[in-house]
């Protein structure tokens, strides 16, 4: 288990009291949890079209996104990949004129059906954005922001654990454990982005949407975030948007290539790069399509 190895690796680097180990347990991506939610967090996109007013930005998309895999949306800018990922947790609801046809179901429930509360949906579908966007608060307050507002913990100690484990999972704990009270804005760009990942997973979503999370980062930080995504896939359904083909190839399990609102091709990660079936995909991969 990659995630467990990560846990151990991090645990070895810090001093843990008996108590915190115990409380820590439920948040760990234990094998128990992995088995039980093995089928949770599955997204099925069926005949999805998205419009902004009269402008159609996505055309008849059909795609299955599987749990514990990294599904990558790739394509040139303006292809609709960002719109697609934001459609998965209804982040676009506030855009004037936004409407969809077709359906997006998560574990069998259409998230655009009447009974679904778009606010609660976000608790199951977390999101990390292109530009790191920590709140102008301390590192600690950033991570506990979600759990606090949703009253997810009963005590300060419990909150401390949520913060610690979230930061551990985001691979940031060792770097900042001594300065949790410092402003998050003092962190480097890469650290800020991992903090945003920690903040997103602190509310325990099942699905993590990542909209070009590494595009504003330097190469070193990019590598760290990519490694992190692979680890996170053990516990979450990860959806990644990128315009970086190398990144898609490095981390993706399933890659969807979009072009001008159409889903051109879907394939398993190595295949789609080695033997693309669609000439458009081939052109894009060989860098001839901007």
């Amino acid at each position, binding site marked *: 288990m990659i995630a467990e190895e990560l846990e151990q690796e991090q645990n070895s680097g810090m001093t843990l009291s008996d108590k915190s180990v115990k409380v820590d347990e439920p948040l760990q991506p234990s094998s128990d949890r992995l088995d039980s939610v093995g089928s949770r967090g599955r997204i099925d996109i069926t005949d999805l079209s998205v419009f902004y007013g009269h402008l159609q930005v996505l055309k008849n998309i059909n795609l299955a996104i599987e749990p514990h895999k990294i599904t990558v949306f790739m394509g040139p800018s303006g292809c609709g990949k960002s719109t697609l990922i934001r459609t998965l*947790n209804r*982040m676009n609801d*506030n855009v*004037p004129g936004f409407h969809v046809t077709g359906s997006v179901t998560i574990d069998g429930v259409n998230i655009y059906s009447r009974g679904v509360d778009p*606010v*609660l949906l*976000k*608790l199951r579908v*977390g*999101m990390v*954005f292109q*530009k790191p*966007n*920590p*709140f*102008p608060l301390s590192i600690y307050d950033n991570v506990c*922001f*979600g759990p606090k*507002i*949703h009253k997810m913990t009963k005590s300060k100690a419990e909150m401390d654990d949520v913060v610690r484990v979230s930061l551990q999972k985001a691979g940031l704990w060792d770097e900042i454990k001594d300065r949790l009270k410092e402003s998050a804005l003092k962190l480097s760009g890469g650290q800020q982005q991992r903090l*945003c990942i920690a*903040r*997103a997973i602190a*509310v325990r979503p099942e699905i993590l949407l990542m909209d070009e999370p590494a595009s504003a980062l330097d190469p070193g930080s990019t590598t760290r975030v990519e490694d992190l995504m692979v680890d996170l896939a053990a516990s979450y359904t990860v959806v990644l948007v990128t315009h970086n083909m190398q990144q898609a190839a490095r981390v993706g399990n399933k890659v969807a290539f979009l072009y001008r609102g159409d889903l051109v091709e879907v394939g398993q990660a190595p295949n789609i790069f080695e033997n693309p079936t669609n000439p458009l995909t081939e052109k894009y991969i060989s860098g001839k399509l901007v």
Partner: protein
Amino acid sequence: MARHLQDTIYKYVTMCLSGVALALIFIIIGVLIDSSYPALVVYGSKFFTSITWNAELTGSICYTSGIAHMCGATFGVLVYLTGTLLSSGIALLIGAPAAVGLAIVLAEIAPRRLASPISFVMELMAGIPSVIYGFWGILVLVPYLKSTLEVGLSHSLSSVPIFSGAVFSAGLLASGLILALMITPIIASISRDAMRQTPEGLKEAGRALGLTDWEITYKVVLPYARTSIIGSIALGLGRALGETMAVALVCGGASNFLPKTFFYPINTMAAFIVFQLDAAFTDPSGMSISVLAEMALLLMAITMIVNVVARLLVRRGFVSRPENLIQV
């Protein structure tokens, strides 16, 4: 060479012109200090502690330290200072929350299509002359307050002294309400602009964490815009303190007594200066002019302090469009 000279001349001429703003402030303060000097010498600190204003215009002239003044005249600013502070305080208590509420509606709740006509109405609100607010106050607000208060608070109203003519039975509450209306566009437009500057990323972060719309406003937008909002409220206060005509029409024109209830007639420093126009001419000793200058100086000092604090709070370079300048 000639061209260089031309540019240099242009630069220094325009520099002097821009410096006029500086000069004017110093001239205003200088003139007020100079003119209030006789009053300061003759009446000293009594000016700040007395509630009586009696110019004794028909008396004879006495001299103190060689300065002419009317024998037995008393000039106390306390009634007017109290009226100014109380009416502005009420204006803030009512106007600031309402204005920030309006700003939230404009920046966060109303769709753009609705927000821009509402914004236009708000900008118009800032443009309506003060005297017209006062006129509306007499015609609509004061009668309305009277009729509803009489029904609801008749026991309180029994303590309200009746002034000449029902229409002019105005006072503290009416002044506070009119001022609240007048400072609303200032506070609301700056607050709205500050809220709109909240980075979209922060709001999206909140939304993605499962915050409701109000929680996003309260936890993300308001903290981000807080300094500017406080600054805008201070600017509103500065406006309320110096507001003249509207208050002059609805304040009830009190003199020589302090308000005991919300419904008491009051007077403010700015309004009183307007009312004393005649006295300024008819005082044979000329002392009234000096005392009014002292009152103006006091008002200037208070509004300047408030405005300077406000300007420091409202972020520099915040106003980016000329058409937004007027409210700011």
